[in-house]
């Protein structure tokens, strides 16, 4: 039931369709007999940078482990560059033969090797020339000077370790790189630098990446495709704007940025739009294709709510947070519902709200379906 919306706002989107670097076909993965993933499908064109979001514990790391060959899916197929690497018919390619680079959620550096040797390992283990210069250059680009290369991992800070792990994952120019929250231990400026660096490097060398993150900002910045894992399945697989503006589920909406929901009653649906009313205003808002008249959720991002006007629904500011040159306000409606809005001032007290219907999104109420129940 993954929903695809087509948006052509991203320059990469215009390229002709390329060969698939990664196909995951209907896999099921278990951990000690609990089903963690169920019926996950994924196809990644060569050269794509895809980001995967999902609640903590939704199985993102597990999916990467299955792709890397650290776990054997109990059902389904994994193909890399057209080659079947895992199936229930007995296909199996050992992890070291898959030609993958990976950054683990913990840095997982080998404590007995110097930083440089950690980085050079993928080259050595594949019998390639251990190119010291390239390793040092990579480290340098990630703000790790040559002196650091001689240290042991335990002498580095958390973020430094994570950067070493990134260098290790890409040194051997793998065709597919899996990254499990690689930047989550880094500060804002280095993170931006590494993002720029990764983006350039991956595009240049045509590397395909699947990047797990919990930061939607990061996902939208890096990813040309965004996936959402929820309830053991891929809930959405879409472009950044598609995901942000037209989330397939309530969870996807929450995960992709600040949002609040209003329970509403949809009176009619036409041409992808829903008719409903909020605080006595009648609105026509874009809607989920599966939405039917009846109870529904109105997802309102802060930019869909204007609060600096002089008229509209009355609400109280209950929290004002400084956010990138503006204030993010949390507002409480008289009925107790809460909304978010941006404002130039952080002033507390009463505001009057207006909803911009074109920025709102109406979707069916979430039905709780967990992987356990479906299996």
């Amino acid at each position: 039931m993954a929903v695809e919306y087509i948006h052509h706002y991203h320059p990469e989107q215009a390229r002709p369709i390329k060969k698939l670097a990664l196909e995951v076909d209907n896999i099921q993965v278990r951990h000690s007999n609990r089903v963690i993933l169920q019926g996950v499908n994924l196809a990644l064109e060569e050269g794509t940078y895809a980001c995967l979001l999902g609640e903590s514990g939704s199985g993102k790391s597990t999916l990467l482990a299955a792709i890397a060959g650290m776990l054997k899916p109990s059902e389904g197929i994994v193909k890399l560059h057209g080659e079947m690497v895992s199936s229930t018919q007995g296909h199996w390619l050992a992890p070291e033969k898959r030609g993958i680079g990976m950054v683990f959620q913990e840095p997982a550096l080998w404590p007995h090797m110097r930083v440089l040797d950690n980085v050079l390992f993928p080259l050595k283990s594949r019998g390639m020339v251990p190119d010291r210069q390239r390793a040092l250059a990579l480290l340098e680009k990630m703000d790790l000077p040559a002196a650091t290369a001689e240290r042991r991992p335990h002498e580095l800070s958390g973020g430094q370790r994570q950067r070493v792990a990134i260098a290790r994952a890409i040194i051997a120019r793998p065709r597919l790189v899996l990254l499990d929250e690689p930047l989550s231990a880094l500060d804002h400026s280095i993170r931006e630098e590494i993002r720029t660096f990764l983006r350039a490097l991956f595009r240049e060398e045509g590397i395909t990446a699947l990047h797990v993150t919990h930061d939607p900002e990061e996902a939208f910045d890096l990813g040309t495709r965004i996936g959402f894992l929820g309830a053991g399945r891929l809930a959405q697989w879409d472009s950044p704007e598609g995901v942000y503006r037209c989330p397939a589920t309530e969870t996807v909406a929450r995960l992709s940025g600040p949002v609040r929901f209003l329970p509403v009653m949809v009176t009619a649906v036409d041409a992808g739009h829903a008719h409903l009313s909020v605080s006595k205003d009648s609105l026509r808002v874009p809607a989920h294709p599966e939405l039917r008249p009846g109870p529904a959720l109105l997802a309102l991002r802060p930019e869909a709510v204007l609060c600096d006007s002089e008229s509209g629904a009355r609400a109280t500011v209950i929290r004002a947070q400084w956010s990138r040159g503006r204030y993010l306000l949390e507002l409480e409606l008289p009925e107790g519902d809460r909304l978010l809005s941006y404002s130039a001032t952080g002033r507390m007290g009463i505001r009057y709200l207006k909803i911009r219907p074109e920025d709102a999104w109406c979707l069916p109420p979430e039905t709780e379906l967990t992987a356990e129940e479906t299996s």
Partner: protein
Amino acid sequence: MKQGTALFTGLVLAILVLAPLLLIGAEAFQPQPSSSPGAVSALQSLGQDRYFWEAFGGTLRLAGLATLFAIPVGLGIALLMNYAPPPARRLWEPLVLVPFLMPPYLTAVAWSLLAGPMGLIQQNMHALGMPLESFLYSLSGMAAVMALHLSPLSYVLLRAALGNSDPALFKAARIHGAGAMRAFATAILPGILPAMAAAALLIFLASAEEFGVPAVLSSYTGIRVLSTTVEEAMNVWPVDLPRAAAVGLILSLLGFVAWALYRPLAKDNRGQVGRRESTPCWWSLTPILAFVLLATLLPIGAIIAVSLEKAITAGFHPANLTWRHYGHILSSGSSAFLALRTSILLSLSVAIGTMLLALLSATVVHRGGAGSRWIDLLATLPNAFPGVVLAVGLILFWNAPWNPLPLYGHLAILGVAYATVTFPYAFRHARTGLSQVPTVLEQAGRVHGASPFGVFWRIRVPLAWPLLIGGATVVFALSMRELVTSLLLQPPGVQVISTYVFNQFQQGNMGDGMAMSVIGVLSSALILGLARGTLQR
């Protein structure tokens, strides 16, 4: 590949350990030679044997006490060496290990030289002499002597485990309100529990099977143990192989129980590999010095004193001193010198070979799977068998008319015997080492292009390295001083240190024997010190 290694190690272990044990088992079901025809098997007749049960109880108490003494001592030293190392740690470590290099028999002799009725302590410090003597000649005394001698074993295992524990866990406990002790119990202890269990298992079985210390001390205490029971069956004719085998089987049953108790502890280990630097600490010299004094300097000193005496009864004074014994041993070409050389070469090759095999087996067990539990058990059992019995099993197997490998009668049989005897030690070390490597580090290796073999050599082995070296040194030390199987298995025309010493003690020159012991102990200490100093991180 996976099946290959599993099959290979299984096969080698079966030959090395299982075959002799099976033959011994078969022997235990023979009737005793002195009994009437058609009598019950030796194993069954043990059931009604009062002497046997008494010895069984004695063994349990002695081994239990020895374990109880040796673990805290080993742990204490390991803690000091790890967290508050004394200055010049490299110097102290070999001294801590020396007691383990001495044959237990010799340690016991040394202590009766020291604390006996006419011993050095009695002569010099009267007040201390009497209580010390009555302590030495008691169950606890025997256990203490065994513990002095086995503490280094627990030290080696625990030290390596401590080095691998995660300091962040300790910090977390301290900050959340636990004092240093409590934090240790919360954060460090569970991590080293597998190593502690392994050490306890090894020490318990080693002291249950040990003959030397009871042989020297038990006659004074009146405590009987199974190993002397075996000796009774084997030393006086008609030689009673079935009875010895039956007792051996019972001891192996004890080993099985100990192993079953140990297993759940070993399984639950989550790997942590962290490092921490620690600054030298002067006060920790005191306890370490005390241990070195008690376990190393005093006994070695007593033995050195004797080895320098012309006549033992004349006591230690200038007129009675001589270098003659050393001169005799070190004159190249003498039988003593040949024995020394044979021992060192043999022990070195056994240390390397056995550790490799242990590493392979531990890998198979670490991976889990059908056969792993059996390998784990097999690797434990030789430890429970008294040396004599095991040696008989080795003869029965390697000398069987149907055995196509003509090792018996060749020097290699000693290598095989040492490998069998020391395998449990090597295996425990390898196993503990491997179980401390976090899986994600291995996964990272696989993903980045290393084959299982590559991961094994480049990641698992280096991370387990401290324990592998620890294990190899233990194997080396044990091989250097192994007596009982050497006595029974040495091919005609060959001698090793221990048999040379034994022959000298029995019917030759005590001084030569003591001198050879000193040289043996010091040369293995030297080799060990070098190995640990250069090969460990």
